[in-house]
């Protein structure tokens, strides 16, 4: 971007060497770091995909309809997030608070789905100790769930600040930074949903393991 374009921008130009806000820059650098963090987990999952020696296998246990709903919920929370930020920037406090609350609620619902899913899986005999699918699945989605939890708490603080007038147009950046984190958690789930759920959902036992099904 040329300097001319930068000054046309709405964002106030910060008094830094790059003209960018330091906290926002750090958040992006942190997200870059987190990309590598989740990248290793996802790569681990993919390397170990279909290597489980005993069941339950993904094809027996993954519940795509339920997860589709929770994926949808998390995706919509991202929409609510960006709307909340828009209204904070526009100075419409009540709408902003409402949409940030929607983020909190949708995030909490997502956590609820994940809790339910973990409980059901454990009930059906899949724990992190059962097989390599359980190991990689639970640790990856669990770490993601921890990120969501942090995000929900963060957003709850934001909703609180917004309601009590602490979050205004001039410090909308606080919400924008929290929002970057939230959207990042969402895009990680986009990858997880595709890779772990949709693509792996038909994974059965590896060749030569488990009961052999002879097709007529």
């Amino acid at each position, binding site marked *: 971007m040329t300097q001319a374009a930068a000054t046309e921008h*709405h964002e106030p130009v910060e008094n830094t060497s790059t003209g960018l806000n330091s906290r926002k820059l750090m958040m992006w650098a942190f997200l*870059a770091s987190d990309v590598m963090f989740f990248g290793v987990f996802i790569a681990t999952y993919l390397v170990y995909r279909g290597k489980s020696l005993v069941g339950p296998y993904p094809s027996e246990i993954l519940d*795509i309809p339920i997860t589709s709903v929770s994926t949808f919920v998390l*995706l919509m929370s991202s929409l609510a997030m960006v709307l909340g930020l*828009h209204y904070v920037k526009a100075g419409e406090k009540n709408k902003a608070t409402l949409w940030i609350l929607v983020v909190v609620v949708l995030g909490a619902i997502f956590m609820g789905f994940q809790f339910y899913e973990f409980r059901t899986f454990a009930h059906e005999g899949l724990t992190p100790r059962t097989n390599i699918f359980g190991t990689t699945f639970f640790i990856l989605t669990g770490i993601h769930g921890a990120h969501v939890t942090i995000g929900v708490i963060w957003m709850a603080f934001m909703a609180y600040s917004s309601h009590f007038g602490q979050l205004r147009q001039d410090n909308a950046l606080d919400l924008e930074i929290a*929002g970057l984190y939230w*959207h990042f958690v969402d895009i990680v789930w986009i990858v997880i949903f595709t890779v772990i759920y949709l693509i792996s959902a038909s994974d059965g036992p590896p060749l030569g393991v488990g009961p052999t099904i002879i097709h007529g």
Partner: protein
Amino acid sequence: MANLWHKLTQHDGNGWWNLPHGPSNELNPPFEGPIGGAWFGNLWRTLTHGNVSHAGVGFYWLVGFVLAVITLLEVWLFTLEGLGGWFIPILLFLSVVKFVGVVAYFMHLRFDNRMFTFFFASAMIIGILIFSILLVIMKYGNQPVLF
């Protein structure tokens, strides 16, 4: 082709999918839309451009709607049989579209300073490269001859 790439990646307010930075960047006369008629341009502007911002509420709803549709499409594709070898590439492509949609529009990378994109993209590129190499090694590495 280069022009299309430019329009997709640069933000100068010149295509109908490009949102201007502010009122001063609005095209004058207003763009009439790819399928003709001022009504489309008006509709598009009303829908998407906020009064002051480069992207309005309508635009975010639109992006959200598209993302939701893609998710539904993914689930629908999942129930289909007979996609065979195309299933994984199609799904990966769709999830990349969703990924880019959120990053570009919800996280504002499309409108923001390019340094943020640089940060994020470098991590993505390094990550995708090394983890792809890792997957290939783990899958084919122990075979005596690869090529």
